[in-house]
């Protein structure tokens, strides 16, 4: 990752041919000549996937521990304390190893193929969506011009995995959880997509890299939220839809603890269950990063502005600073999601649907319309 994919992050749209990626790898590794090209490409992709999976699982482990501590302190108790020293930092590792040792149970009447396949599909789709995330101007897995488009497209296939899990585990509670998941996610895909169009209108680009580059205006604070007045209501709609998309807070109906025993996860145990659990936290991180990049300036902050004015554009320090700003903003979003979960009660399924279709979608359309009008007349005002 350290300069592995060496690409001059200039704004000019350099064509994204394959060799560029391979070229970077060759420069970095002193390799004998006789190794065929496809081995190199596979190696590079393998390294990329390794980095992505490693990064996401570290973030998931961290946010699971953070959720238990945050929920503890919110409830006047402190969460795990003894699992590994200071404030039980190793609690999630202990959970993971314990889940690894659990018996691998497949219920009698379950549809074995779907039951085994569903965690794989869920994880594959969430990692597919996360692959479109840039870590900094120079570190990215793929320089996609349609970044947000792929994230939304691949990200919503987790629903297939969840419905497959609900249907395959041959339990009535799981069936309820799966059906609720299908209804809820469809109801919130639409406002999510429409609400994201507002910052696209403000910034004018689909790619996440260019989007954050465009927000480096006013001493690094020229975020989309300040560029277009309609971005704030759009962010609120985006945030509500993201909560519903990731089955969090008031919308955690698919695995409603107190109604459906454990929703579509009723029959899952051990490592299979932890895949779903990992996917939920990865989806939270994904939605927070998308929110950070398109509304709150992605890599841009006064620190990056200062570094850029010092001319340290392409150095590793600049990339590290960009990465930390993005992750910090994402964790503020993740913390907000946890905060909402431990305060608000759960909404009923018909209220979820009415809010999704009747209130959020029209509101999002109005925001897009006004944002477009604002953009159209902006150049009259400015020049």
């Amino acid at each position, binding site marked *: 990752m350290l300069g592995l994919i060496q690409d001059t992050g200039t704004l000019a749209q350099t064509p994204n041919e394959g060799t560029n990626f391979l070229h970077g790898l060759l420069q970095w590794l002193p390799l004998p000549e006789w190794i065929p090209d496809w081995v190199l490409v596979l190696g590079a992709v393998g390294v990329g996937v390794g980095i992505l999976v490693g990064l996401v699982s570290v973030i998931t482990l961290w946010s699971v521990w953070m959720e238990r501590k945050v*929920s503890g302190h*919110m*409830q*006047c*108790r402190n969460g795990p304390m003894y699992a590994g020293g200071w404030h039980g930092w190793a609690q999630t590792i202990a959970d993971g190893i314990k889940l690894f040792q659990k018996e691998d149970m497949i219920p009698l009447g379950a549809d074995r193929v779907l039951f085994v396949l569903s965690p794989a599909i869920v994880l594959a789709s969430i990692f597919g969506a996360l692959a479109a995330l840039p870590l900094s101007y120079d570190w990215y897995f793929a320089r996609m011009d349609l970044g947000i488009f792929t994230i939304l497209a691949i990200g919503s296939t987790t629903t297939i995995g969840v419905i497959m899990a609900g249907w395959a585990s041959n339990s*009535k*509670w799981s069936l*309820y959880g799966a*059906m609720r998941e299908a209804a809820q996610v469809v109801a919130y895909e639409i406002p999510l997509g429409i609400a994201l169009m507002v910052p696209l209108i403000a910034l004018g680009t689909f790619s996440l890299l260019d989007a954050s580059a465009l927000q480096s205006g006013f001493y690094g604070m020229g975020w989309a939220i300040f560029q277009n007045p309609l971005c704030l209501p759009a962010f609120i709609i985006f945030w509500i839809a993201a909560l519903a998309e990731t089955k969090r807070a*008031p919308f*955690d109906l698919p695995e*409603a*603890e*107190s*109604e*459906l*025993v454990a929703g579509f996860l009723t029959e899952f145990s051990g490592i299979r269950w932890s895949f779903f659990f990992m996917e939920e936290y990865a989806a939270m991180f994904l939605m927070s990063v998308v929110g950070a990049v398109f509304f709150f300036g992605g890599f841009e902050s006064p620190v990056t502005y200062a570094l850029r004015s010092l001319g340290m554009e392409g150095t590793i320090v600049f990339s590290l600073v960009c990465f930390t700003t993005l992750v910090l903003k994402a964790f503020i979003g993740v913390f907000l999601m946890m905060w909402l*979960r*431990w*305060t*608000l*009660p*759960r*909404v*009923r*399924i*018909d*209220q979820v649907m009415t809010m999704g279709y009747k209130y959020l979608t029209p509101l999002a359309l109005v925001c897009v319309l006004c944002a477009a009008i604002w953009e159209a007349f902006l150049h009259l005002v400015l020049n």
Partner: protein
Amino acid sequence: MTSPTETSATEDEHKPSIRPADEVRILASGEREFFMDVATSDLEINMGPQHPATHGVMRVLLRTDGELVTGAQPHLGYLHRCAEKIGESVEWLQYLPYTDRYDYLSAMNNNLSYSLAVEALMPELEIPRRGTMIRMICAELNRIASHLVAFGTYGLDIGAFTPFFYAFREREWIQALFEKICGARLTYSYIRIGGVFNDTPPGWLREVADFCDVFEGKWQEYYDLLIENHIFVQRTANVGVITAEMAYDFGLTGPMLRGSGVDFDLRRDMPYLEYGQAHDAGAFGVPLGTGEKGTLGDCWDRTQVRMKEMIECLGIVRWCLEQIEPGPIIGNVPRVIKVPPGEAYVGIENPRGELGHYLHSDGGKIATRCRVRAPSFVNLAVLEDLMPGSLLADAVAIIGATDIVVGETDR
């Protein structure tokens, strides 16, 4: 899984199936085209003995059509502990610890009900005033603790996890108070026949007064945190509406009755101990359901009545703290109690409704009949009529609002 025939109480007709076509087509391969009679029937789910929403071990056999509940049938008996048979086998005073274990959230009130019933059979026994005062303080503190648990677990049912922890934080303070006075946290056996077991330790009454002052502020916080929360109101208003006639017909009592706007409270209307004087001195009122957030008698009204009752209990406790003065705490009760022959039924206002004891004694050391009229058992019967027509999430909200304790339902 119980066979479908068992749900005779709920109607059994299937949905109209798709009618097969009249003439049968012969396929190219020569065989007749096979039409399957596609009929959709309602799903039967066991909201079984082990379910987070059933407050213990009660099974509700739900018949649902998608999310819509079309039939409900509570099945009880998973915690039947033969309380009435034990009543006929152990002596009068030995039965007191069993009364703690019906409604284990308000053990003081259960002891009080049993003791009053026995005292009704012993007219010559006279209870000193300090004993009565301590009894009233303990009963009302236990009512607050019981309503706190009801508030906390109802938050869990609706999906808000945090109010449960705040409610239990206050409840620990009350349990500490009870621990100081009688040594137990949950099953006290403190209110005995003829008075109370031992006197209050020094400084206990001062600490009760401190609790009352602190609790008032905390109560307002809970009321705004959950009861006035917009999502909570959306989830409970207009859900599980019980009209006054329905309440009479099903024999509901306590917050269930008052939630439907019926102004009846045993402590004020048929007073026992010194509740009559407390009410005349204006120490407490009786909150009623007003239908302010939805229709009269919905789940929100019942919860709001329970919350407001906690404040009235504080009023009673403060009145008792003023009235209490040193003196004996128990009447002259022999070591082995022999109750003169006779029968009596005494019902008192428990946090969940009217808890009544019917005692029949033939003059011996052991009762010949000890009938327990449990409020949760009666309040639960209304579920069969409330649940059809509601969604699955509402069914959970309705069970939570009836605030049942299974120990008392199954006795």
